[in-house]
Every structure is written in structure tokens, then in C-alpha cells.
């Protein structure tokens, strides 16, 4: 049975918690793996031997960098879960001026627990990532699906199409017709356009699609009476460290 570890970096641990919301299926899922370490529930240190590493959270310290390098050396597959790991997410919002923050907060005596801080960045900027479960937080069943892809293989390609196609299937109409900002047109699909279906615009938690057409999206904003500056600002919540945004 594949040995699996869960590693938590800078994050709220909400994705790890949300996985437990798979409740009815949790025992079934655990039956397919040898769970060696789950940071959320274990007090022992992480074991040295494992096959699959699941990583939550952004990289914000040199210690996290070494942890990841070690993880990559040992694991045959690395899965990231959640926006923080995939895009630097919420920690990434603070990327600008990040290194001076501890001094602002603590003064001269920055606690050791903070570690050797580095600018927040996604896991993929440090190591190769094999699979990604998107969104903030992750959908527990989506996590199970990706885990199974690692365990058993799948010939499906991950899509890079953006959200509007999925949103249309919910037949809810478009926020842009109501001069309301929504990040669906540049955000990676896969969630089923859950927020727009509940009446809330997409805030981009699945991250910018690698095929996002940001210049075209900005022109849509202009035409639809949504200020481009607001669009750009909204994108920063989950994509602050993505070089495609500043381009």
C-alpha cells in the first residue's frame, strides 16, 4: 500500500480539515493508503520513508524550502492541496514588503518560531509538483479523485479552460451584464462554478489558468463598466506572485 504523508506549510490548515468532510467516504479512502503522517493529527515527527506527499500551504521560510526538497527527494508523487500551495494564495497577498513585516510587528526581537523568512511563493516554485488540487479550500471529493489518480493512474488531461463554460451550464446569467466584477473568465475551471451558482462572483481561488487571456479580460471589463483597476486588484488575492499578472 502506498505510504502517504500530509505536510502543512504556511496556511490555515483548512484544506486538511476539509478533507475530513468527506466523512462517509473517509474510511474507504484510508483503506487504500498507508497513512504514515498527517500533520494535523500527528505529534510524532514525519517519518523518513513514504511514497506520496500531500502538501498544504505556501512557502514562506527557508525551513519550508528544505522540507520540500527533502519531500521531493523521497516521494514518488507530490500533490499540493489548496490555493496557498498552488499560488502562494493568502500568504502571497503579503509578498510585497514581506521581509520587513516581522520587525514591524515584533520590533528587534523577532521570535525564533518565525523561522528564516523568505518571500511567499507557491510550492511549484521550489519543487516539481505532480498533481494539484485547486481552490480555497479544496473540495474533499476532488482531493479523493486526485489521490486516486496518483494511486491508480488516469489518462485524463487536466483542463486549463476558464470558468465561464462551467458557469453557463448552471444557467445563472453573467455578472458582467450587471456591471459586477467576477474573476471567472481568467480562473481555472474544475469547481463547477460553485460560487456564481450561489450568487457570488468568482474570487479566483482556483488560480489563474495557464491559458488565461488577461489582456482580453481587461478589455471585457472596460466594455462592461467594471474598472480594470478593480479587476487587477481582485486578481491579487490569489495570484499576487504569478508573473503573468504583472505582464
Amino acid at each position, binding site marked *: 500500500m502506498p505510504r502517504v504523508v500530509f505536510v502543512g506549510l504556511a496556511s490555515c490548515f483548512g484544506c486538511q480539515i476539509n478533507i475530513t468532510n468527506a466523512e462517509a467516504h473517509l474510511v474507504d479512502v484510508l*483503506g487504500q493508503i498507508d497513512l504514515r503522517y498527517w500533520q494535523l493529527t500527528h505529534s510524532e515527527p514525519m517519518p523518513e520513508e513514504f511514497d506520496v506527499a500531500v502538501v498544504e500551504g505556501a512557502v514562506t521560510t527557508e525551513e519550508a524550502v528544505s522540507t520540500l526538497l527533502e519531500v521531493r527527494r523521497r516521494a514518488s508523487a507530490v500533490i499540493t492541496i489548496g490555493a496557498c500551495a498552488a499560488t502562494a494564495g493568502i500568504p502571497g497577498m503579503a509578498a510585497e514588503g514581506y521581509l520587513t513585516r516581522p520587525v514591524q510587528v515584533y520590533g528587534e526581537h523577532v521570535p525564533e518560531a518565525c523561522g528564516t523568512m523568505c518571500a511567499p511563493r507557491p510550492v511549484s516554485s521550489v519543487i516539481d509538483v505532480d498533481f494539484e488540487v485547486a481552490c480555497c479550500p479544496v473540495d474533499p471529493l476532488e482531493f479523493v479523485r486526485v489521490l486516486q489518480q496518483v494511486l491508480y493512474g488516469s489518462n485524463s488531461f487536466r*483542463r486549463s*479552460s476558464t470558468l465561464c463554460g462551467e458557469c453557463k451550464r448552471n444557467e445563472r446569467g453573467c455578472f458582467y451584464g450587471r456591471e459586477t466584477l467576477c474573476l471567472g473568465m481568467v480562473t481555472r475551471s474544475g469547481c463547477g462554478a460553485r460560487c456564481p451558482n450561489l450568487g457570488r462572483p468568482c474570487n479566483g481561488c482556483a488560480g489563474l*489558468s495557464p491559458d*488565461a487571456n488577461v489582456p482580453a479580460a481587461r478589455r471585457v471589463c472596460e466594455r462592461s463598466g467594471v474598472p480594470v483597476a478593480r479587476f487587477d486588484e481582485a486578481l491579487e488575492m490569489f495570484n499576487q506572485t504569478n508573473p503573468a499578472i504583472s505582464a
Partner: protein
Amino acid sequence: MLYRVIDASELPSLVSAFMETYEVVAPVRSGRSYAFEVIESFDDIVLDYPTTITSLKKYYLPPRETLFEFDKDGNEVRDFEMRVKPRVLFGAHACDINALNCLNSVFEDARYPDPYYEAHKAATMVVGVSCMPSEGCFCHLLDSDEARNGYDLFLQDIGDRYLVSIGSVEAANILEGACSPREATDEDRIAFRQATRRRQAAFNPDIPDIQEIPMLMDAFHSDPFWEELGGRCLSCTACSSVCPTCYCFDICDTLDPDGKSGRRERVWDACTSPQFAQVAGGYNFRADGRNRVRHRMYHKLNGFLSAHDRNLCVGCGRCVYACKADISPIEVLKFFERKGAENA
């Protein structure tokens, strides 16, 4: 075709009669737009709706459909039950009926008839209704403003009454039982001609009428226009989600959470999705927006025609509203018109 006339006041009893044995799907309000949904009563229906966000294809080709279930470890197919609802699609416009006819020619093709599609279709009745064009409609340019077949009933609004074309015995019986259909008179036929002319005169004159579209699609295949049009594609696939004739799908296996069994599913896919033409090993035959958008338009306005003798675009206008980047067949027609002006 058999024609009868019923009073507009008889419609509620026709719908009630359908509801006795069928699930009735009809246009209803959805926010600021309209959608086809299952109705509870005749009053839910907005029969003079302009268009709906998505089309009727979801009832023949569901967005996600199980083809079969399997046992992963034994690598075996399992017997599997498909539930099909006997259904009436009430209030379909002519363009949408023509769109279903396009799907029929793909999924009922003689060599590989599709058992799933056929099961849905066999359980479905289509009741069409006449309409007046809205701003984005161009069905008349693509020979889809009239439905010549593919329906059980078609209701042509001729004032306070409907001229009903009857396409099936089943529907004729229900009509007979629920209403008092009478023979069409000369007066009814005159009213029908007037209604048709009013419709024909009401199309948006800004959408150019282009002859020989398939030939022009070939002639301008390498034009820089496609770079410009495809360059603004958002890769969102909204166009094919709302399109009544986009039938492409992906086939994928989904495991149950226990990892022991699973389902093979077909899921709507779109040629404007970046990975659509990618093959194992990673090579992508249409790697950019230019190639993808051009391919989509080419299939709509040329490719399908050569195989099935009808256009795969019915001019319903849904993509015109759905595409935020302003990519639609109308833009292609306008381009051809500009080219004609340049060459003149």
C-alpha cells in the same frame, strides 16, 4: 403535414394533458434571463421568451452521462441501469429544433447509432413555438428559421389562436383529447403568412447576409483575421456550453471513493478548450486561440455541411450573448462582408 387550429386559451389544458404522463420542460425566467426547466404548472412558462441561456441539447446529451459501470480490479464491465424520463420539451424555437436535427444526424448515424442518445430521444416529445427574432438572431441566414421536421407539434402564433403543425400520432392524440382542434381556414392561412412575413422583416439588418459561406471559410483560412479573433479568446468554452449543436464530448473514467468500482462517463467538451486536440505524449494539434477558434467556426460553417448537408450553426445567437470577448459567427459574417467590400 397535418394542420389544425386551436385557441390560445386552450394552451393550459394542452400543457396539463402533457403533464399527466410526461415531465414537461419549458422556458422559464432565470434571473434576468431564461432557461429550460421542468415546470410545475402552465403559469411558470414564459412562452414569448427571446432565448434561453443554454439549449435543449442537455436533454438528449446530458453534460455528464454514465456509459457504464465497471469493476476496476476484475477489469470488467458491469450491467447498468439508465434512467430515462418520458419528457415533453415545450416551447422550442425553430432554430433549436433544427439544432436537435443536427444532433440526430450525428448520433443516429447508421453505422454507429448511439444507444444512450437514442434512449433519451425515444422518450422525448418536442413541441415547438413560433418566435420573433431578437437582436442576436440570424437563423434566417442559415436556413434554420423554419422547422420542417423534428417536432411532434409546432405552434404558430396567429393572433389569438395557433396554427398547429402535427408531426406525430402520439401528439395528435393528446391534442385531440385536450383541445378542440379545428380545420384551418383561408383566414388562418392568411394570418400565418402575415405572421411569417412579420418575422422575416424583423431580423437585425446589421447582420450581413453572406452567400457561399463554406467557400469563403476555405478561401480565407489563412487570413490574419483569425489571429485577431482567436487572439481574444478567453478559453472559457462558454460558446460550446450554450451552443445547441456543439456535441463534442470527452470520455473519462471516474472511480468511486472506495477505489474498487467506477463509471465510464462522457462529459461535454469543447474544441475551444486548450487541451482538446492534445494527444498522449503532450503534442497539441491546435495549441493556440487562433487555431481553436478557427476550427470551431470552420466546423460550424463549413465542415459539418460537407458531411451532413446542413450547417452546424443554426443562428440562435446564444454564443453572441455568452462570449464576453465578442467572438461569434456574426463576427465571421461581418469579416466576409468587409472582405467583399475590399475586393469590390
